[in-house]
């Protein structure tokens, strides 16, 4: 036991105790605690086991940079892995456990890894790939996965809600510390719309760690005043508990707001647990602060070794002492305040160890009786389970040359500060090494972005306030608002001396000195990687894994760069830094999905007739975003039975299909005919008013792009129909050519897909059904021939009736305004009842068209198929130009042995060829077997009384009557090649 709760102080509510469970044991904390502060206050030093060696670890920091204290939070479906205890707000009943310990934290079998540590050095993982062959799959991978790692992903669906929110601002301020508050206050003063995003639950919370005044009051009081001012402005949105995870071009930021995580699960039912904010700002001020850096020495990972700033935070913000007897080891001035604060709180401070020979003025410490050892370093932290003592030695070997042992249970360390440059780097902002401050700082510029305060390497309060204020004012002015606010004044003094690092002369004690605590990367690993040639920082990262993991090296990166540079005898600036990618801290998948889950997963499109299909218990299929009835099963019927029945009805009686999803474009203008002539491979200009024509269009490369029927409504008006999935891209295609290549053509296109609902009535009895609905319309073949249309009244509704057939049967397509679609469907089924009308779905439609050898774009075509490949050479116009014509004359497209559309008849008529199956001539040929084609569609046919398929086969038309083979699971199917039109080749049924 070492840490404890101070009798007073901190921003916790001691009247509101909270019970929680960690690793199966019960504890108590206070409202305002984090899980980390409550654990420290309860005397828990051991809170985690490390990634690789399962070494005991304690809380190391007080924020997002935490490398050690990762926990599995919550239980069951709400269980969430790898959360930082330093950022988890305590609530009543909280349940958490360590992530990488089995069977438990205190007795962890994985700790045996330490015994074989020499085998687990950097890159051991890659070396397992070297062999023996087969060991990776059987031994290494299962073993590594079991022993290494983090928390467990929950296996149950997430019961919580998440949502998204978009917001626009003149100025986005990232970070609610002194610089961010000053920036937001200045930017908002003139009326600009400001969004301020702060990671933690409170604005300016860090100011409680500081004794200086701002504008004449304690810093924390100033922060409260600014927070109140911002809250009073309706132009300002303050987002607390909000992490800006990614920053992108043009002022776009993505942030995650944790809205209910500070409450017990389920305490705010109906509310989104987390909200993903899409922020678009004209100017961005990055005031994300800085992370304190560890110092690297043997045993620097033991529980009880903590960042000095975090130690002060726990004292001031949470009223928690992290130990009873402390040593402060710092190369930076800031930790001197920690030593003073510890002494003031009643913690014994055995020594302040500072590697700098000229330690700063330590009068304040002397007054408290604290000894400062300049020019000294901690060369080892020792202890069983946690720190019990440290070895301190003079760096130049002076004194008696002997290391001194100092007993302590807390070692507060500071190796200077690393600006939080992540977001700036994500935007490809350049980072440059600052020799004086020993850190990477933003350099150069990124349009619209200002970095202010500690994030810019200005670590003292006065500079942070000034820089934040200036950045905020400048952003306001740049977005057209006046500069109103006055700069905040502070009593804070800048640091006296620059920090010192020990990268080139690491303390020479015994034991592992960790560079990356989360990934268990040591100085030896870095040296090994350098010896093996991984001297570029990006290579070092990949070889040793330093800087990877859930913390992405927030405390590790600069030390790794420094140690590598020390090994190689070059400056960290020469080594350079890795770049940062989003997210800044891990983001839950639920937050990314937002409300796009379950019923709202993706927009669904339905036809006006859809409710009837649902009532009929149709089975639906997705066609793009459309839900189309695939088949209408009778009770007890499966897909095959239903489809055979539906097909038979269309071939022998009459069927009805909802064809409303087909794309429809009205093409209008004096040049409409000329335009369509250029679009389609076949002539359209000569089409008579009142007539329809099937057309195929190609891209410039001569490959089939879409198809459909064109109706000529008037000399200057056409109605173009497209495939269901192709409607939008065909309209885009038309507009692209009209707007960019042929602006001289006077043509306008209007999408009317959803203006119309369409019901296809098909089958030998179709005329009787339509006749009953449209008694005044002449429907005889002579008056209303195939491929013509009429406007008239159907079931009392204005309708357009077209004699178009995709089934090869006599068919009428009935079109009415979509608001009348449901009434039309009901009328068709009612009129058809005495003829036994059967509703049929897309699957039957596919079988019927395939029996006729009609291709479907996307089934038989895949962007590599020409009209000639499909057997349409007679459609291809000779006397006009059209898109793709030139490409159809290329040597490759005129080859006669291209893959061509044919039918396949399996030799066993019961056997179904698998769609997508590759076809070969000789299934016994040695691998690789030459492929001669593939199956594009495959069905059982009621009309043919057998199975059949469509396929693209090399030189297929010349091979009709020949055999090919297709692997179908374990065996091989033999099939005869046939002409693609298997049913009614003369077309007499369709014309009837």
């Amino acid at each position, binding site marked *: 036991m070492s840490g404890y709760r101070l009798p007073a102080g901190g921003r916790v509510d001691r009247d509101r105790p909270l019970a929680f469970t960690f690793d199966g044991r019960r504890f108590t904390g206070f409202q305002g605690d984090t899980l980390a502060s409550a654990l420290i206050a309860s005397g828990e030093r051991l809170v985690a086991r490390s990634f690789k060696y399962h070494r005991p670890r304690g809380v190391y920091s007080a924020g997002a940079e935490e490398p050690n204290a990762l926990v599995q939070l919550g239980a069951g479906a709400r269980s969430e892995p790898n959360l930082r205890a330093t950022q988890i707000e305590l609530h009543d009943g909280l349940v958490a456990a360590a992530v990488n310990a089995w069977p438990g934290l205190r007795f962890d079998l994985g700790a045996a890894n330490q015994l074989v540590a020499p085998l687990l050095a950097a890159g051991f993982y890659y070396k397992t790939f070297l062999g023996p062959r087969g060991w990776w799959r059987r031994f290494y991978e299962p073993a590594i996965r079991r022993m290494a790692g983090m928390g467990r992903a929950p296996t149950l669906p997430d019961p919580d809600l998440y949502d998204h929110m978009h917001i626009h601002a003149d100025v986005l301020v990232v970070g609610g510390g002194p610089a961010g508050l000053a920036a937001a206050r200045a930017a908002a003063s003139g009326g600009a*719309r400001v969004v301020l995003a702060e990671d933690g639950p409170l604005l300016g919370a860090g100011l409680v760690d500081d004794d200086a005044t701002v504008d004449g009051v304690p810093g924390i009081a100033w922060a409260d005043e600014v927070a109140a001012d911002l809250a009073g402005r309706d132009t300002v949105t303050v987002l607390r508990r909000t992490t800006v995870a990614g920053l992108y071009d043009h002022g776009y930021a993505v942030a995650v707001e944790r809205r209910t995580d500070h409450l017990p699960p389920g305490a705010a039912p109906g509310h989104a647990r987390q909200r993903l904010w899409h922020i678009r700002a004209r100017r961005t001020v990055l005031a994300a602060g800085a992370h304190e850096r560890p110092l690297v020495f043997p045993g620097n990972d033991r529980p009880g070794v903590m960042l000095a700033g975090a130690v002060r935070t726990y004292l001031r913000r949470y009223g928690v002492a992290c130990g009873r007897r402390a040593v402060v080891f710092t190369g930076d001035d800031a930790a001197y305040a920690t030593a003073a604060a510890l002494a003031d709180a009643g913690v014994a401070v055995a020594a302040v160890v500072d590697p700098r020979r000229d330690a700063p003025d330590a009068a304040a410490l002397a007054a408290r009786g604290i000894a400062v050892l300049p020019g000294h370093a901690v060369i080892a932290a020792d202890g069983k389970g946690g720190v019990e003592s440290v070895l301190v030695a003079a760096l130049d070997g002076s004194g008696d040359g002997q290391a001194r042992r100092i007993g302590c249970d807390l070692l507060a360390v500071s190796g200077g500060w690393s600006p939080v440059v992540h977001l700036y780097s994500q935007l490809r902002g350049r980072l440059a090494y600052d020799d004086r401050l020993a850190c990477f700082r933003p350099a150069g510029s990124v349009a619209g972005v200002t970095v202010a305060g500690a994030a810019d390497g200005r670590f003292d309060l006065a500079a942070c306030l000034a820089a934040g204020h200036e950045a905020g004012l400048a952003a306001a002015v740049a977005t057209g608002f006046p500069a109103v606010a006055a700069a905040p004044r502070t009593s804070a003094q800048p640091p006296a001396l620059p920090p010192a690092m020990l990268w080139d002369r690491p303390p020479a004690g015994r034991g592992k000195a960790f560079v990356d605590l989360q990934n268990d990367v040591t100085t030896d690993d870095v040296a090994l990687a350098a010896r093996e040639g991984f001297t570029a920082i990006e290579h070092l990262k990949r070889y040793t894994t330093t800087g990877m993991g859930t913390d992405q090296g927030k405390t590790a990166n600069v030390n790794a760069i420094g140690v590598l540079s020390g090994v190689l005898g070059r400056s960290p600036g020469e080594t350079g830094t890795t770049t940062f990618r989003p997210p800044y801290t891990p983001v839950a998948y639920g937050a990314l999905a937002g409300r796009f889950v379950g019923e709202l997963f993706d927009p669904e499109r339905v036809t006006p007739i859809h409710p009837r299909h649902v009532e009929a218990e149709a089975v639906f299929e997705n066609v793009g975003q459309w839900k189309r009835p695939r088949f209408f099963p009778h009770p007890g019927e499966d897909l095959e039975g239903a489809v055979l029945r539906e097909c038979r009805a269309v071939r022998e009686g009459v069927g009805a299909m909802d064809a409303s999803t087909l794309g429809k474009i009205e093409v209008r203008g004096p040049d409409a005919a000329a335009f369509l002539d250029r679009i389609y491979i076949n002539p359209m200009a000569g089409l008579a008013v009142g007539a329809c024509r099937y057309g195929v269009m190609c891209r410039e490369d001569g490959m089939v792009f879409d198809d459909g029927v064109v109706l000529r409504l008037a000399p200057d008006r056409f109605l173009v129909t497209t495939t269901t999935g192709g409607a939008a891209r065909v309209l885009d295609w038309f507009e692209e050519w009209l707007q960019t290549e042929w602006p001289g053509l006077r043509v306008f296109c209007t999408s009317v897909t959803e203006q119309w609902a369409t019901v296809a009535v098909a089958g030998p009895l179709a005329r009787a059904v339509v006749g009953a609905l449209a008694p005044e319309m002449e429907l005889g073949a002579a008056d209303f021939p195939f491929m013509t249309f009429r406007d008239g009244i159907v079931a009392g509704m204005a309708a357009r009736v077209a004699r178009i057939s995709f089934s090869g049967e006599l068919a009428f397509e009935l079109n009415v305004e979509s*608001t009348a679609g449901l009434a039309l469907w009901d009328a068709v089924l009612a009129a058809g009842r005495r003829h036994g009308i059967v509703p049929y779905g897309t699957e039957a439609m596919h079988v019927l068209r395939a029996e006729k050898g009609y291709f479907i774009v996307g089934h038989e075509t895949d962007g590599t198929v020409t009209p000639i490949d499909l057997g349409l050479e007679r459609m291809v116009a000779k006397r006009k130009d059209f898109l793709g014509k030139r490409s159809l004359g290329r040597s490759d497209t005129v080859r006669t042995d291209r893959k061509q559309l044919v039918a396949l008849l399996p030799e066993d008529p019961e056997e179904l060829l698998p769609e997508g199956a590759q076809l070969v001539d000789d299934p016994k040929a040695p691998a690789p077997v030459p492929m001669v084609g593939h199956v594009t569609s495959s069905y059982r046919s009621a009309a043919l009384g057998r199975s059949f398929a469509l396929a693209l086969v090399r030189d297929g038309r010349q091979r009709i009557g020949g055999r090919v083979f297709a692997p179908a699971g374990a065996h091989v199917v033999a099939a005869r090649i046939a002409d693609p039109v298997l049913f009614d080749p003369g077309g007499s049924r369709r014309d009837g």
Partner: protein
Amino acid sequence: MADRGTTILDPLAAAIAAASCEEARLSRLPLVGQVTLRAGRDAVSLAGVALDLALPTEPNRVASDGGRAAVWLGPDEWLILLPRGDVASTVARLEMALDGGHFAAVDTSAARLGLALSGPAARQVLAKGCGLDLHPRAFAPGDCAQTALARVPVLLVQRDEAPTFWVFVRPSYAVFLARWLIDAIAELRLAPIPGLDT
């Protein structure tokens, strides 16, 4: 045409009514006549005369006149909203006025359905699924935009400062969008989250 129009939103009528609250009222707009007008530069003013309603040429603006409105959709494209009974005569008038010119007037009355969202939290509801800046400084009565709401293509028109927004959507997407809006409004009826003041 006989007024037998039914829409895909009819079955959701009760759910839409139940979703509404003081801060955000959701309702279905009555069916309205819609004419999509495409007109080349030389036809714009002629079309305005024929309609007796000047077509807005400023992008994303709406010109209103009593029961009619002309919504800017593109440099040569407008949506004319008008009583359903006036569609045929309006199309005929446009065709006569613009005969032989570069234009197209197409009855698209059934190609979009309208929803209305009104109330002090209407912007907040839309902001859950729309990336546009709808702040009063950026989007005002008489403004319109073609955008995506919950990944669904919509035409958004702001009518007044309540604010009231008209959301026109392709009928095929209307059920999904209505469900999404009902879901987005739901949190407005909940008690606020303790300790959260945003």
